[in-house]
């Protein structure tokens, strides 16, 4: 059928709009399905529940506005977290630089050694041995990490992102992710040891 008359391009435009609307709705639904996972990460990147809620709302507002810049088939959760960490940085959080680094226990076995010294070697095999560290203590220790370290620990250990995804989300080299992660985990363990084990 030949395209003649003015009605045909108009119909094309209508179809295009309908297709785009469908794509947008699909995008929005997929994003909303991830809201709980996004919130769980956000919650540990900021101080309060209210801030986390606000940050997630700002993230979704921006995501819904710029949905066309998302490439279908790529990792949407990472894409959303990228927006979220950018917004969080924009809030002026980065002004607080990483404070002077405290000396760190060099050993990765440090916390386990301390627990073993108190509860015995065999206790390390038991699942519940970590419960001597209170859940509240874990949350506080995480909150006490310098921001740069905390973001990486939260993304990898809580969000279960790969090093590569975390690097993309935070826009830093993968080596930086690894060094911050290792250092962040050590600070965390040191804090937990100091707070929880006599």
């Amino acid at each position, binding site marked *: 059928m030949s395209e003649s008359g003015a009605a045909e391009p108009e119909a094309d435009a209508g179809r295009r709009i309908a297709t785009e609307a469908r794509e947008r709705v699909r995008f929005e639904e997929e994003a909303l399905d991830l809201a*709980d996972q996004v*919130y769980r990460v956000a919650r540990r990147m900021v101080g309060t529940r209210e801030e986390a809620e606000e940050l*997630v709302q700002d993230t979704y507002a921006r995501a819904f506005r710029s949905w066309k810049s998302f490439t279908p088939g790529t990792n949407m959760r990472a894409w959303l977290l990228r927006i979220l960490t950018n917004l969080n940085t924009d809030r002026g959080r980065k002004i607080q630089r990483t404070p002077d680094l405290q000396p760190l226990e060099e050993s990765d076995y440090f916390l386990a050694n301390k627990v073993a010294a108190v509860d015995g070697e065999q206790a390390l095999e038991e699942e519940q*041995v*970590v419960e001597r560290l209170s859940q509240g203590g874990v*949350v506080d220790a995480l909150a006490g990490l310098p921001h740069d370290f905390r973001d990486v620990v939260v993304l990898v250990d809580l969000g279960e992102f790969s090093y590569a995804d975390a690097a993309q989300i935070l826009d830093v080299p993968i080596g930086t992710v690894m060094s911050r992660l290792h250092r962040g*985990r050590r600070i965390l363990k040191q804090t937990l040891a100091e707070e929880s084990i006599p």
Partner: protein
Amino acid sequence: MTHDADCEKCEELLQGYLDRDLSREEFLVAEGHLDGCDYCRRRYRFEEHLRRYIRLSASERMPAGLLAKLSELRGPTVGF
């Protein structure tokens, strides 16, 4: 309790091992050592439990009502 140079090497590999980020050679070094060393195996297990515990302790589900607020941010609905 023995803790020798092999244990130190194994300790260095701990984070990468749990993150599944070791080269094949490193992985085999860690596995080989863990097979015969209670000291390191217990510490690896402890670290595994610790990670799970941290994830569990720090994970807080989305507050009720947030999803509805997010849904309101969606674009206009178009009949199609």
